[in-house]
């Protein structure tokens, strides 16, 4: 069964070659992957279909088509991937390697991981183990409340329809009282559980 993996470094102008190298290292030993890589200013992937940069609609199409998303610790990437039903595996950019201006991605990756929105890894070995573990047993997002301050709802709970309440000044913190999903979330995916080979193509 082929697994489609979408890899994106985001739009930061610093090259994030390390992520491409790590994904290439992992994918070299797997024949059943369909790799699509948005590599930015880093070198292209050796095994994937490469794009230097993708527009927002193209990115959305990639999330919809992918079984698994791998990315930098980008808030937009994590939020959009969550809305598409993914729990992305993310790698924080390292300022000591010239990948970003400071280490905020490390803290934010751990922060989002603690909320179940992503899996954040900092070494190649950890990335490989998480990728292989995902292939063995996919970890779908249980609730698409992308950046909800609360921990994700129990696995069995279905997400409520998004509220139509206006989000004006003085409104309560988004997503704080709902068990699952901020009002700003517009289109929860119909199917939260995603397995390899079942994603829409």
């Amino acid at each position: 069964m082929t697994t489609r993996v979408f890899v994106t470094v985001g739009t930061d102008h610093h090259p994030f070659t390390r992520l491409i190298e790590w994904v290439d290292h992992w994918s070299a030993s797997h024949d059943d992957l369909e790799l699509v890589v948005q590599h930015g200013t880093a070198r292209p992937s050796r095994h994937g279909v490469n794009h230097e940069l993708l527009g927002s609609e193209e990115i959305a199409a990639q999330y919809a088509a992918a079984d698994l998303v791998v990315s930098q610790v980008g808030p937009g990437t994590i939020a959009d991937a969550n809305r598409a039903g993914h729990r992305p595996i993310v790698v924080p950019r390292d300022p000591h390697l010239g990948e970003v201006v400071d280490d905020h991605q490390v803290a934010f990756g751990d922060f989002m991981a603690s909320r179940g929105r992503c899996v954040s890894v900092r070494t190649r070995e950890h990335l490989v183990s998480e990728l292989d573990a995902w292939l063995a047993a996919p970890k779908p997002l249980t609730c698409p409340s992308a950046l909800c301050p609360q921990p994700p709802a129990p696995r069995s709970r279905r997400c409520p329809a998004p509220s139509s309440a206006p989000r004006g000044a003085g409104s309560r913190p988004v997503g704080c009282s709902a068990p699952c999903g901020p009002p700003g979330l517009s289109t929860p995916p119909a199917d939260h559980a995603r397995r390899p080979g079942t994603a829409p193509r």
Partner: protein
Amino acid sequence: MYIEVIDRIASRTLTGRMVYPFVDQFAVQWREQERLYPGAVVIGPTL
């Protein structure tokens, strides 16, 4: 009004530091950011 970025929960942005002293309302997106900016209002995540 200023809204601090969503992805810095352990440090302050340069912009946040610059505008904090004079904006009418300073907003943060997570409760964890409140300690960085005393008096800020938590509006929740914008993404």
